[in-house]
């Protein structure tokens, strides 16, 4: 989230799209309703009418997978009707930058496309620079190649007519949402966009969010109270686990994973540290070597020295463009390229697309270590229905896991607030926390390497690694410590003391930190700030609910990101009624500003978007793999075979894996005419592994169902409560028909398209409840993130003669 949970109350207009907040983040909804009580309009755009819709001002049904068309229509509406916030657009975004001649967009494709490799050469997606290397600008926004005019041209195709025909949203509904939300394009109004997995789980997921970024920049809604783009995020500590990075492509603190073509420490820094020549651009990532060096010092301690490149050489390096995400991992496993590994606190045999394939793939492992609260479809895959255990070679370890209340440590919520949780009770029986399993396990491995030697033993033996697991030891290391006596701004710190702020991190080996974003969270002066429970705030802070003394949030306790965009060049709030920061003549008051420099008019200020190289909000965003501006593409499986925006039906660069089990239905395949979307439900958690084991929750939601409109049910001769077979080209799933008016048939390109929706929380280890819905979904993913397209695929549905997975 750019903002945070409480800040939702400051919005004048709330667009919930790709999220069912009331059911899946119920407490977030109390802040939505507080805004509503204060007069905000709440809109829910979603294929299904849910409890979120019931409590919104209006619900707008949409065909799953057409969000860019919907958002593009709104961008077009804002540009055509002059609803944008002009000063903000000119001063704080790159709308005025001149895009180089080589950049083009033709019939759905951007310049640089190579159909053979299905990738873009992005070198033409760039700006004209002046002699100093600063982008050329036209603040009048008249230059035909300035970002603003390219945007206008690009989205001119997204008229109400086209958008309505593709999305299935009525023209009235489009007008209603567009006009309401765009009314926030004035300094005194703010609108927020709340999304969740309904936006990310598409082959155009990143561009869905880009469309929100562009819209919010045009309306001046970024950096302000009640604005922003707010990813609600699904999982309990998914913000923290992303920051601390259980991911292949980055290392903690959002730095790139070392690559084979960056052979040395210096080469890594050179390739990853941006340079800006604009004196008004903060270009924050120029400090990256300090953060990277501190991380390496954290990992290898005293063994990491300037001389050995801080042990950079020991780290694994991936190949440029390689994808090691789980979609490709399971494909490699299926192809017998993987020997063994760990799956902890995750149930991919239920939650990864094309379950039939991944379940088979798991059988190919020699060994598997799992750690869970309960048996799951993953831990017990070796004796799943239809498989003879005597033929499954995998050696499986199942470690009992401690529950959240049985361990202490910190977690980070979507608003980036760090919270400490105490251990309330001892772990059940022999259960252990992940930390108390992995620390000793690594010590065993280290001991073996010390004893026996082996391949590259120093990568393991030189690690800075404790004997036992003590959570607070790691909390301190995450913040970072001095590795030698140091003076920072006149204050002396001894070796081993906590680093006060990331501005004190250094690339000379004198500091270590496991995550620079968290430096400042545990200091000599403030102690463990995750434990702070003080609701005190100034009147200005209380007005928008910042709570700066409650816990701590990254970065540097800044509650609203990009908040320098909420003030004018003199540092005065654009909306004084909901001021975030303000220059009082000597200092900033309110939130912690995005950098403490004086206001821009002083001549010593910086542009507000300090994390981007040139300091401006990126309406034109050249960093993405699928284009600098969003464009509507159909989901990979789609009920239509053409759309009015271009000849390019689906994303030209989406990712996929290929095997005999990875079939895809062709566009408008008459065998699979119905759009399937998948979602969570309130009583069960994600794959359901935990909640299916709670009898009262299982009583309330006992078995797998498929929600469908009465119109579709009639067409298929299905009655409410019937057992049905839902079928995609990849697999079949049994479910109970839930015929409901909450699902509406949509008019798409003049014909009726039906949508069905299914939860994915049931599995065979809870007998009679149904089995993985993801046997239907395809292994196709977003080109930037490889997040699979769970939200839109094509199926057919028929009444079942009998059911075997579900007890009738």
């Amino acid at each position, binding site marked *: 989230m750019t903002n945070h949970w409480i800040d939702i109350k400051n919005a004048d207009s709330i667009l919930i799209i790709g999220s069912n907040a009331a059911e899946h983040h119920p407490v977030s909804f109390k802040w939505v309703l*507080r805004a509503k009580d204060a007069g905000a309009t709440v809109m829910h755009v979603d294929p299904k009418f849910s409890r979120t819709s019931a409590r919104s001002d209006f619900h707008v049904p949409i065909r799953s997978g057409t969000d860019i068309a919907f958002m593009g229509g709104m961008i077009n509406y804002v540009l055509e009707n002059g609803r944008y916030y002009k000063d903000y657009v000119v001063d704080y975004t790159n709308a005025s930058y001149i895009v180089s001649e080589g950049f083009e967009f033709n019939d759905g494709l951007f310049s640089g496309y190579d159909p053979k490799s299905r990738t873009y050469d992005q070198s033409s997606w760039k700006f004209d620079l002046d002699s100093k290397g600063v982008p050329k600008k036209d603040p009048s926004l008249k230059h035909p190649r300035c970002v603003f005019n390219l945007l206008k041209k690009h989205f001119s195709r997204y008229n109400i007519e086209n958008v309505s025909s593709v999305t299935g949203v009525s023209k009235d509904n489009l007008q209603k949402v567009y006009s309401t939300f765009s009314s926030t394009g004035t300094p005194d109004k703010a609108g927020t966009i709340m999304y969740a997995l309904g936006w990310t789980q598409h082959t155009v997921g990143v561009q869905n969010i880009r469309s929100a970024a562009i819209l919010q920049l045009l309306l001046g809604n970024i950096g302000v109270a009640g604005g922003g783009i707010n990813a609600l995020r699904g999982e309990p500590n998914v913000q923290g686990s992303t920051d601390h990075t259980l991911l292949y492509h980055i290392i903690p603190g959002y730095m790139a994973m070392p690559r084979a073509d960056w052979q040395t420490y210096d080469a890594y820094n050179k390739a990853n540290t941006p340079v800006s020549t604009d004196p008004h651009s903060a270009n924050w990532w120029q400090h990256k070597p300090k953060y990277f060096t501190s991380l390496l010092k954290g990992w290898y301690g005293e063994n990491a020295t300037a001389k050995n490149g801080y042990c950079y050489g020991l780290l694994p390096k991936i190949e440029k463009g390689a994808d090691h995400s789980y979609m490709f991992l399971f494909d490699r496993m299926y192809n017998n390229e993987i020997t063994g590994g760990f799956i902890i606190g995750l149930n991919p045999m239920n939650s990864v697309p094309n379950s039939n394939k991944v379940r088979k793939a798991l059988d190919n492992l020699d060994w598997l270590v799992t750690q869970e609260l309960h048996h799951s479809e993953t831990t017990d895959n070796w004796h799943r229905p239809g498989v003879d255990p005597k033929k499954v070679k995998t050696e499986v370890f199942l470690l009992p896991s401690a529950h959240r209340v049985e361990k202490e440590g910190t977690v980070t919520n979507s608003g980036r607030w760090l919270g400490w949780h105490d251990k*309330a009770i001892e772990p059940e029986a022999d259960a252990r926390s992940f930390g108390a399993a992995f620390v000793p396990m690594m010590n065993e491995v280290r001991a073996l390497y010390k004893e026996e030697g082996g391949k590259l033993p120093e990568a393991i033996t030189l690690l800075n690694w404790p004997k036992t697991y003590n959570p607070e030891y790691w909390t301190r290391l995450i913040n970072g410590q001095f590795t030698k006596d140091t003076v920072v701004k006149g204050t002396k710190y001894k070796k081993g003391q906590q680093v006060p702020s990331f501005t004190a991190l250094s690339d000379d080996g004198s500091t270590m930190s496991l995550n620079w974003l968290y430096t400042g969270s545990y200091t000599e002066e403030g102690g463990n700030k995750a434990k702070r*429970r003080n609701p005190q705030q100034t009147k200005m802070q209380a007005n928008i609910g910042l709570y700066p003394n409650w816990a701590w949030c990254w970065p540097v306790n800044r509650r609203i990101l990009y908040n320098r965009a909420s003030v004018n060049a003199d540092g005065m709030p654009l909306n004084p009624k909901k001021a975030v920061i303000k220059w009082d003549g000597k200092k900033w008051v309110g939130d912690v500003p995005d950098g403490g420099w004086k206001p821009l008019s002083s001549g010593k200020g910086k542009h507000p978007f300090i994390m981007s190289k040139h300091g401006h909000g990126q309406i034109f965003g050249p960093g993405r793999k699928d284009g600098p501006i969003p464009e509507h593409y159909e989901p990979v499986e789609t009920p239509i075979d053409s759309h009015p925006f271009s000849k390019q039906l689906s994303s030209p660069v989406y990712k996929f894996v290929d095997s005999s089990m990875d079939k895809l239905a062709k566009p408008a395949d008459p065998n699979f005419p119905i759009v399937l979307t998948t979602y969570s439900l309130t009583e069960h958690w994600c794959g359901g592994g935990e909640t299916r084991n709670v009898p009262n929750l299982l009583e309330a939601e006992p078995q797998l169902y498929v929600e469908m409109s009465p119109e579709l049910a009639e067409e298929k001769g299905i009655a409410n409560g019937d057992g049905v077979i839902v079928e995609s080209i990849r697999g079949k799933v049994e479910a109970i028909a839930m015929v409901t008016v909450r699902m509406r048939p949509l008019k798409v390109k003049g014909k009726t398209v039906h949508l069905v929706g299914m939860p994915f929380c049931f599995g065979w280890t809870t007998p009679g409840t149904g089995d993985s819905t993801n046997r239907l979904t395809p292994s196709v993913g977003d080109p930037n993130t490889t997040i699979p397209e769970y939200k839109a695929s094509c199926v057919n549905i028929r009444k079942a003669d009998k059911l075997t997975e579900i007890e009738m």
Partner: protein
Amino acid sequence: MPNVAPSSSAPLSVAQTIHTACERHPALAPLIEHFSELYSIRAELIASLAEQLAKDTNCPVPVINEEKLQHGVPVLSDSNATWAASCYPKLKETVFVHLKNISSLESSITLFEQAIDTQQLSLESLFDALLNSNESMLQAQAKKANIEYAVFIFISQQMLSCLLSAYVHVHKETVQNIFWREAYCPVCGSFPDISILQRPDADQSEFLAGGGGKKMLHCSTCSHQWHFRRGTCPACNNDEAGAIHYFHVDGNTGERVEYCNSCNTYLNNIDLRNTTATPDLSVAPLTLIHLDMQAAQKQLTPLVRTLWNTF
């Protein structure tokens, strides 16, 4: 959302509070019924003083000095009660007459009255000494009046308590939103004699109602209520994991003794979420005397000494 009582339940009167307690704990009835009248009259006195003060132009509005408060200095600290002069006659009369109903106090009260009548003791300087913790002065006065110190303090406190309760009642709106982190009263500086856990705020829209449970401390002297964080000991500020322990009578989780696992100080608590009726909080501590007795057996120390928890 401080001090919000759901519209569904008006607080019980003193008599109702004691009556309810006697029904539930018949064994306590002979003891606590004694106080029903005394506290009812006290409540009436406070109401009438409040009415009087509300009209009195000499009665100053409390000065909210943010800086002073931030340093933990209560509103009435370093002040006096000269504004209350008009209340003295009623105060004296009512408190003295009714405390005399406790026969063992009769002689001391007579002495106290005499001291005032002979101008040996002025209520003004007495309240001044109380408000500023001037113990040597109070000891000297007690000695002079020939009253046992503990009794002298008890009588003085009763009067100050009625006066300040009336004052706080008049200025409720000014003092109710003070930001305060201390366990002593932000208005008069006294420690609380009971805490409550609030009901959810039912007037909020559906997702906002929450589960209630905010802890409010009730001032033993002026009856002001202020918010205090859960999980922290009001006596020693211990906020380690599991700092607050509690016990309750089996089957009634709504009334409990909360104590600190480090300093062993306790404070009784009523969880209003468990009940349909809100007791009168001035008299509620006395209805929990059985819990105080249990606490004493467990060697716990009360946060503030009262008649009900001193054995």
